[in-house]
């Protein structure tokens, strides 16, 4: 909300500086986002009276003026090329060393051999236009009005043309739509300063003849709780007076004519949007406020045609829509210089209806922006009265007694809140003196009646729709009383509770720390991506991961589906790192994925944590990832089993499914070659890329976590160690041999591969694998012959089941 300081002062006596006011507003909940000094950039520009003009020799159009600049010099020579100069004219004179808007600096200099002590300025050079100061747009110098007592040689120009002003750009919270106007802010400032509000005049007379034919009705009171209309005849459109033009100019609006300006002025001053219909264009001289019929069309005054639905509120004459309610008038009923009679509309529309229509049609205006924030019925009444007063004051028509007030029945009286002061103090935690409470509420225009029983009945100003209960009043009181009165306390009345992370939360944190210990960095990625990200992983059409929830209103297609798998996010992170020249790394993310129970979505989906690991770089291989899996298993006292698996996005020969307690908990492997080849990285880098991904279903994994760790007694008996060098066919997997060994003898407590050898002496298609075994019996010392028997059994089984022989 932009509030000009000078305009604000018309309603409140303000004796403090704009900077002081900014601070006070801030502390009571109105943050001034910017305090704009209109004179900023203008310095040493003063009123100069031209006392003598002579043509400058040797030039076409330059004149050398002698200028009286008061204390700055009574006879300064200044050259000008402006055509509209005359002796006795008072003009803005930019002196030597002065500055003008746009960072322009004026210096004394030689102009065609003559010294010029500055520059005489036009309105444009001061950054103002005709509405701001009459004559500001003429071709030439700004000729100042000598009847103004401020126009004396040497006077600062900003004070003369009204640039000695400030604009407060105030951020208004959503609960205070009543402050979206100059008057609204004036009420707050008045309360802050303890000054009365000088209300704008709202009186008027009705000399015009009524018109009984005019009729107004509201068929959708839910969307239009209040609709006021007033008939004005004998319209006399003319330019607005200077004060009104100045008000509009301060707000950044240009003046059009008195009638249109009055509606704009009322919006700015009271916060009430208004519309004026050229009554002669309304079929049947009637107004009906209703929902549009589906398919109905309207062309708004910016010549855009819209097809409407029943969700759009329209203002119609007896035949057709003539305005999109609260958003914009129709082209056909627009006010023109020929308009002779008009019907003023001043309404309260449901904010949500206006917002939806405005959004749906992509059409907005100052009016719709205001309605979206919320307009109260008090302002609707006040706005119409103020506009009619201005019609009379500016003599732009004859007001009639033909007026309409369609209401949904909302009471036109103040609502009340009953409280005892102790309730306010109980919210705040301090004791605010009752006199201070009463004073603050009264200053804010609340009515306070204190009953004999000590109960306060507080009546709420009609423009304060936000105040409903005593906590709202507690806020009113503390924001005026001062938050610096709050004394920090430390939950002194609260019961003692136990706190901290619960077990699952601790486990998650432990997992993250464990992975960090393994050299992994935690990544944090967006919860949504594109279907194309799943396509890139070659997931088949029927893959469950493709059952993804779509966002109805995504920012872009790139961020349109809730992820069902973390792998695409991880792959994107890896690609981005490669692009930045980070050639290697280990990353993980423990985040939710979203699996719908059914699509389209009917209930909250299954949000489950997924653990994704990504490893890339020349030094990494499949077994780095397997090592990370083993670290997780070790950290949580689990036994993982691995099985060859097929995953669409992983290498068919380098993929494993991870099993724990007999259930699959995830997969890992190398990124499939064809996917690596398609990554958006430099071509010559693709072939060398070594990218490994893992994705584990965290809840499945967490189910396997032991409830509690128990001490396992150490064996008192020394274990026996044996090394076996075995020869087998190339296809035989290490895991198969280990499983066979363990199955062959329950005494085997540990098997560890320590060497693989391939050589001509073994024969083609053969390899030698060397294992070290640990055998033990928790109950007794193992006698050597029992160890030997176990080894014999192991070798026999290996030979029989896998055709593995001792080397």
């Amino acid at each position: 909300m932009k509030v000009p300081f000078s305009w604000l002062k018309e309603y409140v006596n303000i004796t403090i500086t704009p900077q002081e006011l900014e601070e006070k507003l801030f502390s009571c909940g109105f943050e001034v986002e910017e305090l704009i000094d209109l004179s900023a950039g203008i310095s040493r520009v003063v009123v100069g009276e031209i006392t003598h003009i002579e043509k400058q020799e040797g030039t076409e159009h330059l004149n050398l003026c002698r200028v009286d600049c008061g204390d700055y010099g009574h006879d300064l020579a200044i050259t000008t090329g402006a055509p509209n100069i005359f002796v006795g004219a008072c003009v803005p004179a930019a002196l030597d060393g002065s500055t003008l808007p746009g960072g322009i600096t004026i210096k004394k200099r030689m102009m065609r051999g003559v010294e010029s002590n500055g520059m005489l300025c036009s309105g444009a050079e001061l950054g103002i236009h005709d509405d701001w100061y009459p004559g500001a747009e003429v071709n030439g110098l700004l000729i100042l009005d000598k009847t103004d007592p401020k126009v004396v040689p040497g006077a600062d120009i900003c004070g003369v043309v009204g640039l000695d002003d400030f604009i407060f750009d105030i951020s208004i919270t959503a609960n205070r739509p009543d402050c979206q106007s100059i008057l609204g802010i004036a009420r707050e400032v008045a309360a802050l300063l303890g000054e009365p509000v000088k209300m704008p005049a709202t009186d008027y007379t009705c000399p015009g003849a009524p018109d009984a034919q005019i009729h107004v009705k509201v068929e959708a009171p839910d969307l239009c709780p209040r609709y006021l209309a007033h008939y004005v005849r004998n319209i006399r459109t003319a330019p607005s007076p200077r004060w009104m033009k100045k008000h509009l100019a301060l707000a950044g609006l240009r003046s059009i004519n008195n009638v249109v300006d009055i509606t704009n002025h009322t919006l700015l001053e009271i916060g009430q949007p208004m519309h004026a219909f050229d009554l002669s264009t309304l079929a049947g001289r009637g107004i009906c406020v209703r929902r549009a019929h589906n398919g109905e069309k309207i062309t708004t005054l910016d010549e855009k045609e819209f097809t409407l639905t029943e969700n759009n509120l329209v203002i119609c004459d007896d035949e057709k829509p003539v305005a999109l309610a609260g958003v914009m008038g129709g082209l056909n009923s627009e006010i023109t210089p020929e308009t002779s009679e008009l019907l003023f509309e001043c309404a309260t529309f449901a904010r949500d209806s206006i917002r939806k229509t405005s959004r749906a049609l992509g059409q907005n205006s100052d009016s719709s922006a205001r309605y979206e924030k919320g307009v109260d019925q008090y302002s609707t009444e006040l706005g119409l009265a103020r506009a009619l007063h201005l019609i009379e004051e500016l003599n732009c028509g004859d007001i009639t007694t033909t007026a309409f007030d369609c209401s949904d029945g909302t009471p036109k009286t103040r609502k009340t809140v009953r409280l005892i002061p102790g309730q306010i103090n109980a919210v705040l935690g301090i004791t605010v003196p009752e006199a201070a409470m009463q004073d603050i509420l009264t200053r804010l225009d609340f009515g306070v009646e204190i009953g004999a029983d000590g109960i306060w009945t507080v009546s709420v100003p009609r423009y304060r729709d936000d105040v409903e209960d005593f906590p709202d009043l507690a806020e009113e009181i503390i924001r005026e009383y001062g938050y610096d009165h709050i004394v920090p306390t430390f939950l002194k009345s609260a019961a003692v509770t136990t706190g901290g992370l619960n077990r699952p939360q601790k486990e998650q944190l432990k997992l993250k720390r464990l992975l960090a210990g393994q050299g992994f960095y935690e990544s944090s990625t967006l919860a949504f991506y594109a279907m194309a990200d799943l396509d890139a992983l070659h997931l088949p059409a029927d893959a469950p991961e493709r059952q993804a929830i779509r966002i109805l209103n995504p920012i872009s297609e790139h961020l349109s589906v809730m992820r069902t798998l973390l792998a695409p996010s991880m792959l994107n992170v890896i690609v981005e790192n490669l692009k930045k020249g980070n050639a290697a790394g280990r990353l993980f993310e423990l985040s939710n994925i979203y699996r719908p129970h059914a699509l389209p979505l009917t209930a909250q989906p299954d949000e489950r944590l997924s653990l994704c690991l990504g490893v890339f770089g020349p030094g990494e291989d499949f077994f780095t990832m397997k090592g990370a899996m083993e670290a997780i298993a070790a950290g949580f006292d689990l036994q993982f089993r691995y099985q060859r698996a097929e995953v669409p996005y992983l290498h068919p020969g380098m993929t494993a499914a991870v099993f724990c307690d007999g259930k699959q908990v995830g997969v890992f492997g190398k990124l499939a070659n064809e996917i690596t080849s398609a990554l958006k990285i430099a071509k010559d880098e693709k072939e060398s890329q070594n990218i490994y991904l893992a994705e584990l279903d965290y809840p499945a994994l967490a189910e396997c976590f032991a409830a509690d760790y128990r001490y396992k007694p150490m064996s008192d008996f020394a274990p026996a160690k044996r090394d076996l060098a075995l020869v087998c066919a190339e296809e035989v997997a290490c895991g198969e041999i280990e499983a066979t060994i363990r199955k062959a003898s329950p005494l085997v407590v540990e098997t560890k591969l320590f060497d693989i050898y391939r050589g001509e002496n073994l024969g083609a298609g053969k390899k030698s694998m060397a294992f070290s075994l640990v055998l033990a019996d928790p109950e007794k010392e193992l006698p050597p012959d029992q160890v030997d028997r176990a080894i014999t059994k192991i070798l026999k089984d290996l030979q029989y089941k896998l055709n593995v022989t001792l080397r």
Partner: protein
Amino acid sequence: MQKIIEELSARVQADLAKVASSDTLAAFWQEYLSKNGKIPSLMKELRNVAAEERPAAGKIINSFKAQVAADYEAAAQRVKAAELAARNAAEAVDISLPAKTRPMGALHPITLVKNQIIDVFAGMGFSVYDGPEIEDDDHNFTRLNVPKNHPARDMQDTFYLTEELLLRTQTSNGQIRVMDSQRPPIKVLSPGRVFRSDSDATHSPMFHQMEGLVVDKGITLCDLQGMLDCLVQNLFGQDTRTRLRPSYFPFTEPSVEVDVSCFACGGKGCSLCKGTGWIEVLGGGVVNRKVLQNCNIDPDVYSGIAFGIGIERIAMLKYGINNMGLLFENDLRFLKQFQE
């Protein structure tokens, strides 16, 4: 005998002087002190000594033997020390050579800040509730006193999945879910991802918040400030102060914006605090009575305070990160800079 010993002694001294290593030391022992060494062998010479002189001669031999043994010990010490010194010298390394490290990873700065905040409040008895990210309108808005058509819905651009389901715009949904399942006294934090359809240099469509809620008897605005003082002192240093100023959130009344005194300049005014001496860090207030009522908690018996913190904002302030995008890029050069 005396003569023999004198001769031998001269040889012993000469050989002892030559002892410079374990090997020569062992040879010396072998030569003179071992069972068949030259000194124990002197005892055999006693046969040739007159019987009456034998005790005296024996004494002389023993005394000689003891002397040589002591000399041997001294030599052994000397050799051992010399050899240790030589070995140490040979084993010495260039300590400026690069270290052998097992690569250490790290948690994301968002996680670090989140954990730090949880630590502060865990000590005050707060538990942690992880609410759903896909939420219904009821928990995200309606029961938080943001009914349909409420102006506050415009404050937050919401991602919708269906008419009723949406991506939570705030972690405040945790307030409702906790109060539905728990009776006062309640002290809970609700951290997590939140979503707004907003994306530019200073906004990410997903970011992280931490909600805090206390519901008990006699809880006031003063308690909110006291609790938050404790938080910001933990995050930004013991001298940090808070300042409350009025604001608006539908779920709290009164609502406050909480600023902290600038920890970069101590409140004097600098570029971080834009010359004001204060930095806006979070919002909060006294829980709206309607929110308590919506959760079947009697607002005439219990009162509550709540606050919400943007984790990214705290991380940026705490670590001096000037671009929020960095927190979501996962550039390893960035991630490597953070440790617990």
